[in-house]
């Protein structure tokens, strides 16, 4: 009995101490942009979000609040963003948007313009092409987080050994690949995305961009195309054209100097084969270079140079810009909008971009971060991409931001694979791609 009565005040004391320590803890952790609140992010399984998963605890501590980070594969994220857009109130405060998806998501995103103006946010530190890539009809729909181009990586040491020039054009690339394939026993010329579906479909349109052409009939603007205002009459497919034929021929020529199993090679596999010394060149999304640049065992580490996509005859070099932006859904609870904006400013701040690079995300959309010595040491690709950005060699029009972009990629990924497999001639593959896409555009009611 006595015991019981004495236990009660002790329990109360423990409770008070515990509550005190929790409050003290939350007060301490509330020191950060999240101020003790919780932010809900829908992300993608790409390096930057994978880094966020890796350092989740550290980020919550730095942010002073909890971070609910849902990382999804590309197609699941795509569906989830569109389904979330149909809710009365969004389930997420921040969503990841791929550059070519802005066209599709435009009606479902919040314009950052008023928030940028009210907070005096300075976007001039971002590469201009990355910053303006998310501008549509005068509205800023995304803040760059991991925008990066698809470029060419090649082995400097191998090129020097065989006395080859840097492959800045298709012709030079094919020549170098031919020489290396013939002279080397265990190294092929070039690795690229030739697997059926999205991988090959994207290769086709990015290579078509090397010939200065886009997959739909967009309006020319100098060497580039007008992306901010694509009209229904611009939706005619332009696959069965001279540029399309040149693209198909180039892919067939590349197939000859590629490693075995190229028809099933995609994304990280091409980089890993390159990293292991299986090929002398690879097309690569710049951020993925961490796979070999941060691997001491790789013969490619420290021996790699970077170039924009090699160009076709008479066309200027243009590397396709892609990658991820942070956006706020238009149907966000108004009371959470300010929190989302605060969180985005923090997540895309120079300190955070630098932190991501140190954990394996070799992308910096901010000039100030690209200049840092530790960043350049961990990711030699970053200054190379910086130079391409300054030279105006990055562009996003190769993958026009229209709702049908995935259909275009899917059709090309299937038809061109038949061509590379020898089931169809280039002419037949181009003709059927054109016909199928024309049918799709008519079905969508553009013309």
């Amino acid at each position, binding site marked *: 009995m006595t015991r019981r009565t004495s236990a009660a005040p002790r329990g109360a004391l423990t409770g008070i101490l515990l509550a005190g320590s929790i409050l003290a803890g939350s007060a301490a952790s509330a020191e950060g942009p999240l101020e003790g609140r919780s932010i809900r992010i829908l992300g993608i399984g790409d390096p930057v979000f994978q880094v966020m998963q890796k350092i989740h605890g550290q980020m919550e501590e730095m942010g002073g609040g909890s971070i609910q980070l849902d990382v999804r594969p590309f197609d699941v994220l795509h569906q989830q963003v569109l389904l979330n857009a149909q809710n009365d109130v969004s389930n997420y405060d921040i969503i990841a948007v791929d550059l070519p998806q802005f066209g599709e998501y435009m009606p479902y995103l919040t314009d950052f313009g008023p928030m940028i103006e009210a907070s005096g946010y300075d976007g001039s530190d971002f590469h201009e092409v990355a910053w303006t890539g998310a501008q549509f009809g005068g509205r800023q729909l995304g803040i760059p987080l991991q925008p990066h181009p698809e470029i060419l990586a090649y082995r400097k040491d191998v090129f020097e050994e065989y006395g080859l020039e840097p492959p800045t054009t298709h012709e030079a690339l094919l020549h170098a690949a031919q020489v290396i394939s013939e002279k080397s026993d265990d190294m092929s010329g070039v690795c690229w995305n030739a697997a*059926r579906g999205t991988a090959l479909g994207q290769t086709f349109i990015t290579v078509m961009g090397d010939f200065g052409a886009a997959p739909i009939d967009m309006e020319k603007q100098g060497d580039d195309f007008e992306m901010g205002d694509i009209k229904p009459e611009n939706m005619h497919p332009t696959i069965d054209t001279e540029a399309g034929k040149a693209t198909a021929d180039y892919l067939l020529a590349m197939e000859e100097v590629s*490693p075995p*199993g190229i028809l099933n090679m995609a994304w990280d596999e091409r980089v890993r084969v390159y990293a292991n010394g299986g090929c002398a060149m690879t097309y690569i999304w710049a951020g993925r270079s961490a796979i070999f640049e941060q691997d001491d065992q790789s013969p490619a580490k420290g021996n790699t140079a970077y170039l924009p996509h090699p160009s076709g005859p008479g066309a200027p070099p243009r590397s396709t810009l892609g990658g991820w932006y942070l956006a706020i859904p238009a149907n966000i609870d108004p009371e959470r909008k300010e929190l989302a904006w605060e969180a985005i400013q923090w997540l895309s701040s120079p300190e955070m971009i630098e932190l991501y690079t140190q954990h394996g995300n070799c992308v910096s959309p901010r000039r100030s971060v690209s200049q840092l010595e530790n960043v350049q040491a961990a990711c030699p690709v970053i200054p190379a991409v910086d130079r391409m950005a300054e030279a105006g060699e990055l562009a996003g029009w190769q993958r026009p931001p229209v709702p049908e972009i995935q259909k275009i990629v899917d059709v090309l990924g299937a038809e061109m694979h038949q061509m590379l497999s020898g089931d169809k001639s280039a002419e037949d593959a181009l003709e059927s791609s054109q016909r199928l896409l024309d049918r799709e555009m008519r079905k969508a009611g553009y013309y």
Partner: protein
Amino acid sequence: MSRNREAKRAAIVLVSPAMLLLFALNIFPVLYAVYISLHHWSLASPNPPRFAGLFNYQELWYDGRFSNSLGVSATFIALAVLIELALGFGLAFLFNRKLRGLETLRKLSLLPVMAMPLVVGLVWFYMLNQNFGVTNWVLSLFGIGAQPFLTDGTLAMLSVVLADVWQWTPFVMLVIFAALQSLPEYVFEAARMDGLTEREIFRRITLPLLRPAILVVLVIRAIDAFRMIELVFMMTKGGPGGSTEVLPWYIYTTGFLSLDLGYAAAMAVVMIVLVTLGAQVFVRKIADPGAA
């Protein structure tokens, strides 16, 4: 009379939860798929769905990729199920013998069935990969050059079949083994006393008695093989060309990558009809062995 009515009412009450579940989980989704298939319905388009009548079904008629995927599915089912049946049958007879160590082996042989098909696909993808795969390395030890297991049309199909056979043969074996175990011993003793040879016993007694089990396993495996998508997803993405593009993979890319829900639903409805018709033939044979 009133007792009859009461019994009927009780039956309705008892059956209705099951019927409700059946409607919610089976019938409603099918009806909804039919509804979607009659619309131009793209999740990627900001425009609301609009009625299309039979447009999506007409498109199927002209779609070479659709007819190709039907052919690929038929080839895959025929190859995979027949090989699984033959191997499963052989293994079941082997394990039915009372030999030492066979029981442990039989238990171990069931392991592939327990693996997730996606994992199975990934493992086979890496084993058969031309750049990293162990299979080509083993072949090279015998002086055989690297084989394009996943990038040659015929080999790619055989590779996917191989992965499916590896995973599902033990299941076929298990069903036939269980049926074998349940066969009455006295029938075989009587047959031997009547002077029948072992071959005659197999042909005239064992096979007819195993027929229901064979048909059941055939229906289950054929339906399962028709729905197979994981191996193609992990190993070939339907390539090279369209040589391994089975119907579910085409439906998946149309519905979940291109987000053309109307057209994907039309294909799914055709698939449901085909599966139901095919299954009906077998189910009728199981229920009535004398039926044509």
